[in-house]
């Protein structure tokens, strides 16, 4: 057995960022700290994935198979202590200050070990992502305060994003679908706020959520024109959690039904006014779809690493399974596909830092505020009060929309959809192909490979089915012809 081979992957040194993406060398020369911080993020995430997640991943999968409501709080606490769940928040405010690239690296590393673990830790940024769409300074700062406070006090705080309804999945994500959909939820204007009724389904972390960002129409007969975005605190009267679903994979991440029974939210919880709900959804999708592609990249790599280790140890008629030519061809093919996908995914991540909401953290007004003011003051009541004023909120919103236009959002939906479809189709293919290599004996749960196969399928479905993602790619690129 060659030692170097055994070291490949989960038990040793998988290629690091600079080795797997040598083109970043140029970027490192131009902006050393940008790349070196991403390299540091990779080290932290890889160590966490291997030392904390890997030893428990199969046992957790088993426990959740028996009881879909079981949650690995011990792992969550460790991630919380490492601040992985608030990684995009600037360091000065208490987070890790990781760029979109740094977060991409983390998602790849965590998902290479467990997709569910990765989503439990990283999906929490929905709160921040959702607030950044309109970027009303008071709301953004308040959310950062809450997240940082919860992290410090080691109190779980989960944010869910509720789009899917029993009768509308894909319809909630694009215009032609929303025009014709039959909503299962509705919001009615009442004095001081809104009353919300209806049901959402397949909501990630819905059963754990403290806050849910939900797309809900005011006029169900005109969903597109009246779709709005609300912040729903789970503590509200009328909020209830239905069934926690029993799924094929990604078992350690809970997926739940949510019911709203005459739930009242005050006016300020209307994050996006009627008619702008789809735009809000599109902006979140413009970020999250690409990250699903990155998670799929991680899964593909993790699955292949397991397979290589198994094939290097399994003996067949005196030689290693890895020595069979057909196995070598299959593995080379998978390596090639992963290399290609990696370029697509990291191009997306760097573009997020350059052109999307992440560039806010790199802009002069934000940089000045972050460098001049002490952290305590930034998160203090004084700044919060100023941020809450309508003028400052409007300036924040105007400035952000100047940086990230509607066209930019649609462009990123296309980039993200491409990364998502390419990545998730590859993850589904690789997670199946590795089982074809290891055979029936490598299929048993304890080898950790069949789990990738069960997990991968869902990535082709959520964040818009891959078919809906393709419609988006066509519509943006060619649809106007």
């Amino acid at each position, binding site marked *: 057995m060659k030692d170097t081979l055994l070291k490949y992957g989960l038990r040793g040194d998988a290629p690091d960022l600079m080795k797997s993406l040598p083109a970043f060398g140029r970027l490192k020369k131009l902006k050393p700290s940008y790349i070196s911080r991403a390299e540091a993020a990779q080290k932290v995430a890889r160590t966490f994935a291997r030392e904390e997640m890997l030893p428990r991943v199969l046992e957790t999968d088993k426990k959740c198979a028996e009881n879909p409501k079981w949650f690995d709080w011990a792992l969550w606490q460790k991630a919380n202590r490492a601040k992985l769940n608030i990684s995009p928040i600037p360091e000065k405010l208490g987070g890790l200050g990781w760029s979109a690239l740094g977060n991409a690296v983390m998602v790849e590393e965590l998902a290479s070990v467990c997709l569910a673990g990765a989503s439990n830790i990283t999906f929490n940024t929905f709160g921040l992502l959702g607030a950044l769409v309109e970027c009303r300074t008071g709301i953004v700062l308040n959310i950062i305060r809450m997240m940082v406070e919860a992290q410090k006090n080691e109190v779980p705080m989960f944010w869910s994003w509720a789009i899917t309804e029993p009768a509308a999945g894909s319809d909630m994500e694009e215009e032609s679908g929303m025009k014709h959909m039959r909503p299962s939820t509705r919001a009615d204007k009442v004095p001081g706020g809104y009353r919300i009724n209806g049901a959402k389904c397949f909501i990630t972390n819905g059963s754990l959520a403290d806050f849910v960002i939900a797309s809900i129409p005011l006029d169900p007969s005109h969903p597109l024109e009246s779709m709005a975005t609300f912040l729903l605190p789970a503590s509200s009267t009328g909020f209830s959690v239905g069934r926690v679903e029993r799924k*094929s994979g990604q078992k350690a991440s809970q997926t739940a039904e949510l019911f709203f029974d005459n739930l009242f939210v005050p006016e300020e919880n209307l994050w996006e006014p009627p008619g702008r709900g789809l735009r809000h959804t599109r902006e979140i999708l413009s970020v999250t779809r690409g990250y699903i592609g990155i998670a799929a990249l991680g899964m593909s790599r993790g699955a292949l690493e397991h397979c290589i280790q198994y094939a290097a140890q399994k003996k067949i008629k005196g030689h290693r399974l890895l020595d069979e030519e057909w196995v070598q061809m299959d593995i080379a093919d998978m390596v090639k596909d992963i290399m290609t996908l990696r370029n697509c995914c990291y191009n997306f991540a760097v573009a997020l830092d350059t052109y999307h909401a992440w560039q806010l953290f790199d802009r002069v007004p934000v940089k000045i505020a972050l460098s001049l003011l002490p952290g305590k003051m930034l998160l203090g009541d004084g700044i919060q009060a100023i941020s809450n004023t309508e003028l400052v909120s409007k300036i924040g919103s105007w400035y952000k929309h100047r940086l990230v236009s509607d066209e930019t959002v649609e462009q990123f939906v296309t980039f993200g959809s491409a990364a998502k479809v390419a990545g998730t189709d590859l993850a589904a293919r690789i997670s199946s192909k590795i089982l*074809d290599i290891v055979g029936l004996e490598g299929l048993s749960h304890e080898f950790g490979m069949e789990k990738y196969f069960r997990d991968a*399928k869902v990535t*082709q*479905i959520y964040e818009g089915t891959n078919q809906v993602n393709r419609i988006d790619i066509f519509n943006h690129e060619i649809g106007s012809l």
Partner: protein
Amino acid sequence: MAKMNQHLPDDPIQEAVSECRRFLKHEIHDKVLETDLQKATDWVDRIWEKSRQLDLPFLLLPEDYKGAGFSPYSCAVLLDIIAAECAGIASVFALHYTGCIALLSADSRQQSLLFPRLTGAGALRPALIAPVFPSETDGNRFEVEANDHGLVIHGTTALTGNALTADIFCVFIEEDDDMGGHITCVVLEKGTPGLSTGQPADLPGLKVNGFAPIILDHVMVDHRSIVGRRKKAGALMERAKDGLYRFIAAMAMGTARSAFEKASAYARQRYQAGKKIVHHQEIQRLLGNMKMKLSIGTAGYLNSFDDNSNFFRFEAPKPPLVKVFCTDAALEITMDAIQIHGGYGYMHEYGLEKIMRDVKVLQLMLGRNPKCQINTIAEEIQHDR
């Protein structure tokens, strides 16, 4: 060979199919998802017992021994139908029929001892067979020592289906290369001293079927239990394996048919962008693709029974290749069926994700698919020489 057009309406297979469908509806349909969540070997036992009402355990045995005298072709058709309801249960019968194929070539003295056990004579439980084939993997080879009483066998087999519920093990042993690499076929009863099962595998699919390695710890096999050695055993094993390849293909098509029907029904009632999704071209293309694979795969496995086919000098599909085609196609069909269902397809209660897991195990039974393709051509080259 039993050709499709030879089956007239009063053919026994037609009646068996109808009876089988009734049996599945009453005994299996409502339990499939529940038993998928737990190790339900006792449920398999009950189904096995009840299935004797339909002669299912002894379909392949000669009528002289109170069997039904069906052909492997008819068994495959029934396995297709059973698998559409529950691939795990179908796999129990498929492995049993594979064992029966081997024992049909045993000598008459052995048959007279074994067949009454298999038909459950004297109100006994009909014996369930686990066929055990040699594995390519090192560590699954055997030491076989001959003495005056018979053979002493020592070794551990690869993962074997029916291992936890079988009454009889039909074991094909590939002796260690130093001893010539010959095949020996022996029949061992559960409870034979030295015979035990190893750690059960925790497979993602076919969960009601207990897969485990069989451990033979210096097991004494008397002459009466040796079905064949060397050439005879080798030919027997090839016959049994060819049977199982076809049965796996039939089960794959059955499970895929079930997935296709679910997807087709769902597409007719789910709306997207203001119209039923079945009216979207992309869904029609997906369903068309699934139906194509289903039709060709089914025709392929049915045709593979035609050993003498010379129609336009086209040879009948080789059983290992039929297994590869049908299981690969079944997995693709099932994945697409889930995709058409969206989030619902991924949830246990819709039954589709179970089919996906079941098909993945079927795909890996009796050898890796790429290896089946390689071996088919490698054997042809050997014949050329």
